[in-house]
């Protein structure tokens, strides 16, 4: 771990674990910097993400939260002019190492986007497509049902699975997108402000859902909403201007932050 980053942790967080993934470290960032052409969006971030926990990433607009999230399943590959320094290890595998196929990574690390983006296809096919193209061998019907149940959408759509997904409400569409990601049976679920275009009721449903998913998945969520981060996450990372200011136990970050900037931000003095 870089000495440049003064990072503090709550009492429940163990950071003194080896790279090999025991004690629940699933993803570790080491001196990660990301550049858009010349502009540096992420500045030398090192931290660890624990499995079966919800880690939320908070920070003001444009601080690099989404860039950081997208680096973890190599979605930044689609943005022109992005380059990366440092390492991201996922279960001990260097995500940007030679011979690593981003397609396989995205299979194992799923993503839910800010705006619901279902395919203009039926509800059923939205979920079935991913497993099909990845060569899923079990019963697709069962998988669709299981995924929709996990995303708490089954009861609302079970009678109209072959209706276009675009006819669903925004909140239902977002839960469909979660179900679609879950159908791939990923190890990690990255969520990029998944509730920002939803009403409070839909937001509450998705937060409930995340609690239930925690036992099976590792969730990293970028959010603008500090109450949301405080409500749902086990760990919280505060990023400002591309730098990791502080990461730690959520309760500690919101009640006894070590850094002054963190305190200012979480108490609403800026941002």
């Amino acid at each position, binding site marked *: 771990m870089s000495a440049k980053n003064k990072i503090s942790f709550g009492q429940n967080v163990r950071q003194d674990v080896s790279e090999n993934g025991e004690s629940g470290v699933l993803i570790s960032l080491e001196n990660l910097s990301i550049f858009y052409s010349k502009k540096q969006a992420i500045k030398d971030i090192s931290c660890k993400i624990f499995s079966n926990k919800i880690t939320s990433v908070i920070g003001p607009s444009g601080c690099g939260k989404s860039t950081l999230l997208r680096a973890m399943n190599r979605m930044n590959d689609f943005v022109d002019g992005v380059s990366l320094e440092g390492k991201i290890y996922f279960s001990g595998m260097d995500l940007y190492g030679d011979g690593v196929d981003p397609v396989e990574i995205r299979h194992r690390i799923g993503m839910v986007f800010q705006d619901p983006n279902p*395919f203009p296809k039926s509800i059923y096919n939205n979920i079935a497509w991913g497993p099909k193209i990845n060569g899923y061998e079990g019963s697709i019907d069962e998988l669709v049902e299981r995924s929709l149940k996990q995303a708490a959408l089954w009861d609302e759509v079970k009678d109209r699975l072959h209706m276009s997904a675009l006819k669903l409400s925004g909140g239902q569409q977002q839960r469909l997108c979660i179900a679609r990601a879950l159908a791939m049976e990923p190890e990690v679920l990255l969520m990029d402000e998944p509730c920002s275009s939803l009403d409070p009721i839909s937001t509450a449903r998705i937060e409930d859902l995340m609690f239930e998913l925690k036992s099976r998945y590792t969730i990293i969520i970028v959010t603008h909403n500090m109450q949301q981060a405080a409500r749902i996450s086990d760990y919280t990372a505060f990023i400002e201007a591309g730098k990791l200011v502080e990461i730690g136990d959520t309760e500690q970050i919101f009640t006894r932050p070590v850094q002054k900037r963190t305190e200012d931000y979480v108490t609403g003095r800026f941002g």
Partner: protein
Amino acid sequence: MSLNSEKQKKNLAQRQYKTKLFRLFCASITWLSTLILAVLVWQVTASGFNWLDWQFLSSFPSRFPENAGIKSAIAGTFWLVGLVAVISIPVGVSTAIYLEEFAKKGRVNKWVEVNISNLAGVPSIVYGILGLAVFVRFLALNRSLLSGALTMSLLILPVIIIASREAIRAVPRSIRYAAFSLGATRWQTTWSHILPASFPGIMTGIILALSRAIGETAPLIMIGALTFVAFVPEGPMDAFTALPIQIYNWASRPQDEFRNLAAAAIIVLLFILLIMNATAIYLRNRFEHGKNK
């Protein structure tokens, strides 16, 4: 100044007057072009309609106007369009997919894009000269349907590529990201999501481009398509004529009867074009509707 002052009211009246004036201007231009088209269609119909019968559609050309027909020209036109479609659709759509989905967006891509746009603006006669030099002479394909089809394909390729690229580019990025985030490859994403979503736009571009190929005369004359063909082509290596060439040939004759024949052939050509454009609109509406179902 309150909002209801006299000055305000006068000002508003003036502004509304300008809107009305502009509307009138646009409406008159629209109606003027429609009127000109109507007059043209009327003239053609008036002089050609009486000549339009089964005998005309099913006979070969003749030096006697009452025996002359457009059987070989219709056959040639359908052959030509069919071959052009077979050549230009795969090439054009693949090029568009490559440029939009696979090629690195950079200076080379930009350069190719500018060149394709320029090619779309090159006069058709230039393609005719190219076709004559390359296909007819150099590749020794002679004055065959294949020479004509290859030349026409070159002519409409830029149109197909540009239309397909626009259609592909119009597919929201979020759809691509959704597919990639599920562990899809470029090809799976393109095949399952990009192509179906851009299909109506690509189809419209293709049909409009093929319609253009049907109506083009200059390149065919340049490569030496025949004007008097008393047989129906049986393969791509046969000599041929096409409707626009037949029309051009008849219209340049001094006798009135042949000009009427030309008018009758124009009606047939217009009818074919109309059918094709209607198909384009139907396909677009059907698939766009299907998407939002």
